[in-house]
């Protein structure tokens, strides 16, 4: 299985420990091209840590992470991003002091070095691209607003938009609907379904209803290990999963 080159992302034997505590333990995870994978699990299961490991925020203690069949462990965060992996954080991580337009503009994957940024021109093409994404994330009317004035849900969308404009091959979303109203959730689900047409997506989510509305394949993490994997239906009826969630 590990020899296969079909996977977009392959984690094999990945382990990480914080002062002796193994947050992730010998984890194997494979993501196909075009797949939408939802990772669920109780608090402390290691979900966010897995994302941290993939995007280089935390270094693995052992094991390998391959993206498009190339080892990415040890690369710097920005290098991993440039390979085509985008990451959304749990709490919306946007530039509050800048406008929505500027937030999106900065995320365009060009002019990323010092000189490039210094002599960056805001061309027609750039404006168009920003407008296009802004429409997608329902923020076209807010482009000139300072990002800190947005609602919580709008901030979440903005961050998703900032990732979309990078056009990553793998998009990782950490609780994208946390703190959203019901209507915002529906819109977000719609947005995600739009997004995944072109790329692979990993979503961490607690909200089972939301998971049902988007999930293709679900992985259940527990204590740093995979407890179960399969489609939503199978998972929901898996006795081990039930125990972890309800058992105590």
């Amino acid at each position: 299985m590990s020899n296969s080159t079909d996977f977009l992302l392959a984690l094999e034997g990945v382990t990480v420990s914080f002062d002796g505590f193994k947050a992730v333990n010998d984890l194997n995870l494979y993501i196909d091209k075009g797949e939408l994978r939802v990772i669920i699990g109780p608090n402390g299961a290691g979900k966010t840590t897995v994302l941290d490991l993939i995007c280089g925020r935390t270094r693995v203690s052992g094991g390998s992470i391959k993206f498009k069949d190339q080892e990415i462990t040890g690369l710097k965060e920005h290098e991993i991003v440039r390979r085509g992996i985008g990451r959304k954080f749990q709490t919306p991580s946007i530039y509050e002091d800048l406008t929505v337009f500027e937030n999106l503009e900065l995320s365009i994957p060009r002019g990323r070095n010092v000189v490039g940024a210094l002599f960056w021109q805001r061309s027609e093409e750039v404006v168009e691209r920003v407008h296009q994404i802004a429409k997608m994330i329902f923020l076209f009317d807010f482009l000139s607003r300072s990002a800190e004035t947005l609602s919580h849900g709008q901030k979440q969308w903005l961050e998703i938009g900032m990732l979309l404009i990078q056009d990553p091959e793998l998009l990782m979303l950490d609780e994208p609907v946390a703190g959203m109203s019901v209507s915002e959730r529906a819109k977000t689900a719609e947005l995600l379904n739009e997004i995944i047409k072109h790329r692979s997506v990993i979503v961490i989510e607690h909200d089972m209803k939301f998971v049902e509305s988007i999930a293709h394949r679900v992985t259940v993490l527990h204590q740093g290990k995979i407890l179960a994997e399969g489609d939503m239906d199978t998972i929901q009826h898996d006795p081990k999963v039930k125990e972890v969630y309800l058992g105590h």
Partner: protein
Amino acid sequence: MFMGYSLGELGSIFAMQAFAGLILFSVFVLMALGLAIIFGQMGVINMAHGEFMILGAYMTYMTSHIFQTYIPGAYPVYFFVAMAVAFIVSGAAGLATEWLLIRHLYARPLDTLLATWGLSLIMQQAFRSIFGAREVGVELPQWMMGALPVTDVIEVQINGLFVMGLTLIITGAVALLLYRSRWGLQVRAVVANRTMSGAAGIDTRRVDRLTFGLGCGIAGIAGSAFTMIGSTGPTAGQLYIVDTFLVVVFGGAQSLLGTIFSAFTISQSQSTLEFFLTGSMAKVLTLLLVIGLLMLRPQGLFVLKVRR
């Protein structure tokens, strides 16, 4: 430089040098402890730390005067009273500072740096206005001066022993407070997760205030102890700050142990280098060494590895 000395003499010299290093270590720990507690708890460097120490030194000076004038018979033990006074006054000043200044700035650690620097200027001028621009001499009880001969050559300085003992007691007390008391539990909870602790019913503001007060109080005791080895003047606090900051920063924010190890590393390298080089070069090399090591361990020596 070791030509012409017998092995025995050399041994004694190294013993004395090790002792000198230990005194320096104690001094660093004493200086840094108060600051480290505050830094660990709030991520804030109190730039007026040196002035809080000098406040303690002035309190010692005043106490000694009062004893000399009113109860000369009790003079030999005035120092213990002075330390208590220093702790209370500096601690109270710390509480006031927290309430007036620091609590408004928790979200902005760099701004706290600047505000406390402003405070240090004000305190310096206040000292100057109250106690005069000149340094004051704090007279010590006779039993604290001098050295105990161990062998013919090796002598152990009494005030060095005193500082070491004091450091041990205060460090022990702080450790007990932190790891055995309810307040300590709350402090550690707040350090680990401020929001959650607040939600769990811990009055984080009160914890902050007490921590800051305690840190400043310990600075006061340190200042009191330093009247034995250093000068007491309006700007004397400035003499200690760079060393103190480096010890704390090098030790890292999270643990008391880090501060102690960092004080140990810095004091030993400084006192060893001082022996082989001149004082100035030793200082420069020590500072560079610390900067270099900090580069290797950006968050300090002892950092808990956690998911950020």
